[in-house]
């Protein structure tokens, strides 16, 4: 294949990422002079909105060029769709952090630049058309989050979370890079398109498949798919809740965006057992995520395992890239970003200054004491459980439709059976809030910014639940969704 001249830069596609980078740099500079992190937060939010507007402009008027740097950095519908979701998740997390960092004694202004950098990494991952770009994005995304996980310094649990995440994350990255080396050895290029073409001949398939498997493992770590999910519950429990709001959404979107592109473009050229292995991983994720969540008593841990389970549902879409799986995954991730960030936002109001108190018992009687808080959490939980007419249901229908059309009936049935389990543990929280009397004082935390985040998530969950066509039609543009695929 002939590549365009080396510096074919499409600035409109790069603009969202650059906006994040510039804002991160500016906020870092601000952080030197401001003790109060709120100004920094507002600047960060402005940067996120700017990036969003750049992405929107590109989305409305796509340029002729689908990618920059010789198909190494995409600006196609898929990249932009995932950029939207990442920016949405980041904005929600900034709002949740805005006036809660002080309360939780986490108020150091470097927080926001780190968050922006991590979002930048996720955007690069979603746009990557090349394995090196992918690794760069992954590292830019991960390193700040390791720091943010341990943001509650002198707290053993938070430090443990950061350390654990860092060690396991580094392990995952190593796997990924090793896999990339093998793929390069087999295909002679890092570019997805080039790999697909040079591997199509059928030589060196074993080597390439081994490389593909290691890439799958590396990205599976970030996507928290079983059996590479073990870090997730501990990190979610140990890290400060606003940070979890961020990473439960953004990291997952980045990882899945990259996975989708690799699986859709490169995997068809590899040995078919890799797809079978992926199916087994997805099945394991569904079973382990849902059954483990059922055993938990801490709501944060329940949601952590539920995040693992949702990686399983997204994995179903991975198996059906030719049958509408990609727009399905994008829609599912949108819904997931809204409902999961919403649920964690509510949770951040429930926990005390040390981020403790997420035990189920604390939720007893919340329906009577904080009716609005309980009602919104109920909405998010029902949506996570896939109850219509909320966004999670539309996402579930799309994903299952795709996986059934691709012929994975056993996985569809397994997925639906585990969904029953999921509904039980989600409903358990609702049951505590409404069907029991309170034994504790109601949490008294109130935060306007967090309320705004909750309201945005709630409106989105309802809107995309009642009118899913609005967003899915934009995503569902057929073959051109992955440029060149």
């Amino acid at each position, binding site marked *: 294949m002939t590549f365009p001249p080396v510096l074919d830069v499409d600035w409109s596609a790069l603009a969202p990422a650059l906006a994040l980078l510039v804002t991160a740099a500016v906020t870092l500079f601000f952080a030197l002079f401001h003790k109060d992190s709120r100004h920094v937060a507002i600047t960060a939010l402005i940067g996120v909105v700017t990036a969003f507007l750049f992405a929107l402009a590109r989305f409305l008027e796509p340029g002729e060029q689908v990618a920059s740097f010789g198909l190494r950095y995409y600006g196609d519908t898929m990249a932009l769709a995932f950029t939207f979701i990442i920016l949405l998740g980041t904005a929600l997390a900034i709002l949740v952090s805005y006036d809660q960092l002080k309360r939780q004694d986490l108020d150091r202004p470097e927080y926001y630049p780190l968050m922006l950098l991590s979002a930048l990494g996720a955007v690069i991952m979603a746009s990557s058309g090349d394995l090196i770009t992918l690794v760069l994005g992954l590292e830019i995304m991960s390193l700040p989050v390791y720091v943010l996980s341990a943001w509650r310094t002198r707290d053993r649990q938070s430090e443990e979370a950061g350390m654990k995440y860092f060690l396991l994350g580094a392990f995952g990255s190593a796997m990924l890079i090793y896999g990339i080396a093998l793929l390069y050895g087999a295909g002679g290029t890092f570019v997805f398109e080039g790999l697909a073409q040079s591997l199509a001949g059928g030589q060196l398939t074993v080597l390439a498949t081994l490389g593909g498997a290691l890439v799958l493992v590396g990205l599976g770590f970030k996507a928290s798919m079983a059996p590479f999910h073990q870090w997730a519950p501990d990190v979610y429990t140990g890290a400060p809740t606003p940070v979890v709001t961020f990473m439960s959404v953004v990291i997952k979107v980045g990882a899945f965006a990259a996975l989708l592109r690799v699986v859709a473009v490169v995997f068809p050229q590899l040995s078919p057992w890799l797809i079978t292995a992926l199916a087994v991983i997805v099945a394991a994720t569904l079973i382990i995520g849902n059954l483990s969540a059922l055993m938990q008593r801490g709501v944060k841990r329940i949601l952590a395992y539920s995040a693992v389970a949702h990686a399983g549902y997204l994995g179903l879409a991975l198996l059906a890239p030719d049958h*509408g799986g990609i*727009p399905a995954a994008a829609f599912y991730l949108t819904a997931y970003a809204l409902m999961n960030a919403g649920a964690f936002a509510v949770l951040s109001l429930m926990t005390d200054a040390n981020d403790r108190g997420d035990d189920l018992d604390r939720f007893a009687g919340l*329906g009577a004491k904080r009716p609005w808080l309980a009602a919104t959490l109920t909405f998010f939980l*029902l949506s996570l459980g896939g*109850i*219509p*007419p909320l966004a999670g*249901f*539309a996402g579930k*229908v*799309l994903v*299952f*439709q795709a996986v*059934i*059309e691709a012929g994975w*009936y056993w996985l*569809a*049935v397994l997925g*639906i*059976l585990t*969904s*029953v389990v999921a*509904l*039980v543990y989600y*409903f358990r929280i609702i*049951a505590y809030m*409404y*069907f029991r009397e309170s034994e504790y004082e109601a949490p008294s935390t109130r935060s306007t910014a967090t309320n705004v985040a909750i309201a945005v998530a709630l409106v989105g969950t309802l809107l995309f639940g009642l*009118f*899913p*066509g609005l967003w*899915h*039609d934009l*995503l*569902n543009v057929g073959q051109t969704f992955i440029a060149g695929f």
Partner: protein
Amino acid sequence: MISLYVILLPVLMALLAILARGSAPLVRGLAFLGGIGTFALALFLAGSEGFNAAWLPGIGVNFALDATGAGPVLVLVAALVMIPTLLVAASRVEKGAAGFVALLLLAQAGLNGIFLSKDLIVFYIFWEATLIPGLLLLGIYGGDRRRQATLKYLVYAVAGSFLMLISILALKALSGAASFHITELMIATPALSAATQTWLFVGMAVGMMVKLPLWPLHSWLIDLNEQNHPSGAADVLGSLYKVGAFGFFAWALPLLPAGAERVAPYLLALAAVTAVYGALAAISQDHLKRFLAYGSLSHMGIIGVGLFGLHLAGLSGAIYFLAAQMLSTGGLFLVAGMLYHRRRSFSVKDYGGLAKSAPAFAAVSLFLIFAYIGVPGLSNFPGEFMALLGAFQTSPWPAAFATLAVIAAGVYGVNLFQRLFQGTTTVPTTDLSPLELYVLVPFVAGVLWLGISPAPQLRQIEQQASLVTLQLERVVEAQPGVPAVTLAELPGGER
């Protein structure tokens, strides 16, 4: 458009009721307005123009509603039942009446959606969404063992309906239908092989059996009714939400005729067992609500017998019975609630001889019990009779067995009345209050209406039932891929 308004109005009223939760009179007014308004709309529903809008065009889902066939009849009867039920909820629930009313209204909106939707996914959306208000009513307002009952209800309902969802999605994927609209599905799905149809039918049947309900998937119903709020208002909703029969009638049977023919004999046997089991269990109950739950389970068995006989008269009769039982069962649950209001007990042993001090109460109750056990001239009789008659044409033995339930009904019905209202007086009790009188009048009127003049409603139901039999005949003709039914013959066919 009325078919859309009949769903939106209760939702709107529910939201208003929540906003007005501070003021009891306002909530009562909104409840009344919601009930009457929906009923008024439902009166003009039959034959009105449908509604169609793209919902998720990427996978062929349209928000399609249509007011032909059996749907409008069920909406109308449900709306009639809901007026007094909402009144009872607004005045007899001491704590959180606004929430109770709002949940009832939301459930009513969902029910109307179930009855009117013509797109399979939209049908599923309403089917599933209606579960949540019912769960919350039970969990928030229920009795001491409400949590176990809620969990049981949740697991039964969700396990069934999620399997149904898989069948629904596979239905389109395998048949290659262009969308989930019933007309497109009905053309495409009968071409599927009999084995495929059987599997898909089983998947759908599990979800629908839970909500029919059929033995042995019925036990959630008994606990639900026992633990629900003592006013009985939530139990009325429970008797409206037995939509499994409608699911079979409107979707599973016409879409998968070959599967239906293979599976129906087994379901017929289960239905006959349900009918007799429910009736026998009812005889031995002391708890008033459990009694009504088992009696109603027996009715559902007879409805199942009518359905799975796969005969035109049986199908129409079953759906007519489904509409009619809303009145008698619902009315009796409210009567039970009124008794509880007087004595704080659901145990039949605590009552007796009430007729002396409360003659009007006794008379109305006797009337409703007569309707409940299927006395000719009252609402349950035409449907029950036709359901059994239809089943006799195709499968006489199960039908004959199920008829035992009708005999047992006479026993438990009269027995109940004697134990409650006759015999030696225990403690004198107050007769019907004006509110209670107003509450029971719509039930009495409805029982007479459906009992005396069944023909117009039956015509509407038969219009849809004949579709089912048409689809079943296509299996016999065995011409896969050749549509024997033209588009215009189907409900909403001119889409």
